[in-house]
C-alpha cells in the first residue's frame, strides 16, 4: 500500500508530464519537414561573434535527422521539461502532506527510511518512464516523415538523461527533507537546474558540462558514452538521497 500511496501522491504530475512530453516528441518529429524547408530557403548565415558561432554550430549539427532530433529533443525540449518534472516530483515528499498525511504515515508501524525510500523509488521509476516512453515515440513515428531514428540512440540518450538528471530530483528531495513547504525546495532546485541546462546552453558556459552529460553529447558526436560524468552524477544523487533519508530519520515532525 505504500507504493500505491506514493503513486497517488505523484500521479497527476506524472500523467500530465507524460502527456506533455509525448506531445512534444510528436511535435519534434513532425517539425522536421518544416525545418528542412525553412533551412533550404535560408542561405549561409553570416553572423559573427560568439552567438554567431553558436548559431552556425546549431545549423551544422541539424543537417542530419539524427542531429536535428538530438538538438531539438535531447538537448532542448526533453532536457528542459524533464528536469522540471524531476524537480516537481522530488518536491514535497513526506511533508507535502502538511495537512496531516505526514503525521498519519508516521503513526504507522513503518520506518521513516522505508516511507521516504518508497516515495523516492516511485518517483524515480516515473522519471525513467518519462525519459523513455516519449523518446520511444521518435523511432516509432520517424518513418511517417520518411526518416529513421535508431533504438540504440534512443536508449542511450534516455537513460543518460535519467541517470544524470536524477541529480535534480535528489536535490529537490533533499531540500524537501529540510524545508517543510512545497515551494522553497521546488524553486531552489528549479533555479539550480535551469542555470545548468537553459542558461548553460545559451551562454556556452563551463557548467553546461551537466547539460552535455544529460544530453549525452559526447555519445552523439563521437559514440563515446560519458561514463565518468554519469558516474559522478549518479553518485552525487545517491549521496543526496542518503542525506535526505538521514535528515528525515532524525528530525521532529
Amino acid at each position, binding site marked *: *500500500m505504500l507504493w500505491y*500511496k506514493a503513486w497517488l501522491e505523484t500521479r497527476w504530475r506524472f500523467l500530465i508530464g507524460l502527456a506533455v512530453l509525448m506531445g512534444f516528441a510528436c511535435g519534434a518529429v513532425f517539425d522536421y519537414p518544416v525545418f528542412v524547408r525553412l533551412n533550404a530557403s535560408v542561405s549561409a548565415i553570416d553572423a559573427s561573434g560568439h552567438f554567431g558561432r553558436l548559431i552556425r554550430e546549431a545549423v551544422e549539427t541539424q543537417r542530419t535527422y539524427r542531429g536535428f532530433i538530438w538538438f531539438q529533443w535531447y538537448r532542448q525540449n526533453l532536457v528542459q521539461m524533464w528536469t522540471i518534472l524531476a524537480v516537481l516530483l522530488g518536491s514535497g515528499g513526506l511533508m507535502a502532506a502538511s495537512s496531516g498525511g*505526514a503525521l*498519519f504515515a508516521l503513526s504507522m*508501524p513503518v520506518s521513516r527510511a522505508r516511507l521516504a525510500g518508497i516515495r523516492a523509488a516511485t518517483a524515480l521509476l516515473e522519471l525513467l518512464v518519462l525519459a523513455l516512453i516519449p523518446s520511444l515515440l521518435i523511432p516509432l513515428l520517424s518513418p511517417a516523415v520518411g526518416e529513421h531514428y535508431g533504438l540504440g540512440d534512443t536508449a542511450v540518450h534516455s537513460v543518460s538523461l535519467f541517470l544524470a538528471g536524477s541529480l535534480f530530483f535528489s536535490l529537490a528531495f533533499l531540500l524537501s527533507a529540510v524545508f517543510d513547504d512545497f515551494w522553497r525546495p521546488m524553486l531552489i532546485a528549479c533555479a539550480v537546474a535551469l542555470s545548468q541546462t537553459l542558461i548553460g546552453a545559451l551562454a556556452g558556459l563551463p557548467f553546461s558540462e551537466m547539460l552535455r552529460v544529460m544530453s549525452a553529447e559526447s555519445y552523439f558526436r563521437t559514440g563515446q558514452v560519458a561514463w565518468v560524468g554519469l558516474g559522478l552524477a549518479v553518485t552525487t544523487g545517491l549521496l543526496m538521497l542518503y542525506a535526505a533519508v538521514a535528515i528525515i530519520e532524525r528530525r521532529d515532525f
Partner: protein
Amino acid sequence: MPDAIIATTNLRKTYGHVEALRGLSLQVQPGSLCGFLGRNGAGKTTTLKILLGMIRPTSGEARVLGRRVSDSVASVEIRRDVAFVGEDKPLFDYMTVQDVVRFTAGFYPRWRQDLEQRYLTTFGLSPRTKVKTLSRGMRAGLALLLALCRDARLLILDEPTSGLDPDMTEQVLQALVRHVASEEMTVFFSSHHIAEVEQIADRVVIIDRGRTIVAAALDDLRAQYRRIHFVFDDDAPAPVFRAKGVERMYRDGRVLTVLASAGAEGIVEEGRTLRPVSVDVVPVSLKEIFLESSGVEG
C-alpha cells in the same frame, strides 16, 4: 504492580530557547482510561508525539509497552500495538475512505473487520467518499475507526472531541468506554473538556509548563480535595499550617480560604485554633483542581 503501559522519566524538550518539557514524568497503568489535562502550551501534544516517535526528546526517557521510544526500531514495534489520533485527525486527504481503511488495515494483521463494518455504518461513512470532503464529525469518526479496528493495546488521542457536535462527542466517548471495558485496551487522551474527563476517566494527569502537577485516580481526587472557608470576626490571619496538604491559601477580608489536596480534617483542626466564626468544607470539582494547579507557579 503491573508494568506501566506508558512511563516517562524526566522528559525534556527544548526548541531553541523555549523549554516545552522541563522534566516531565508520568505513568499510565494498563486498562486505565487516563485523562491528560493541561493548558494550551503546557506540553501535551509534545509529550504525545514523543511517545509515538514523531519528536525526539532533548533528554529523559520514555517507554511505551515497555519499549524505549528513542530506539527507532523499538518505536516501529511500539506502533504495531498503539493507535494514535492527532488533534487535526491526520489522514490522507487525497485518498478515499476505502483506500485509507485498506492502507491502515494492511499494517495490522489483527484488523477487526467486524468493527470496521460496524463503525462505517455508525459514523455514516461511505467507502468511495474522498477524505478531504468529509465533514469534521465524519473525519473524526473515520480517524477513530482506523484507531479502534487495529486491535491495539493502547490508544493515544489528542483532543478527540474538539470541534464535534454533542451527538458525535457522545459516540466517541461511548466507543472509548466500550473498548476499554471489553477489549482490554488502555486509553490515554488529552482534552480541554473537563466534564468529559470527569465522566469517563479513572485517572488524570495534569501538566503545566512542561511538568506533571497532579497525577492521581479521579476518585482519590474527589475524596481528598477540599476547599475550606474560615470566616473571622476581624481580618483573616495568614497562618502557616503544619498540617500537610495545603495547596493554596487566599485571604479576602474576613475570609480565609484554603485549598487542600489531602488531610482536610487536620487543616480544619488547626484552623479552629485561630477561632473562626464559621468553618465550611466543600468539595472541589476537577475543573477547579485544574484551574488551581495550572497558572501561578506553585
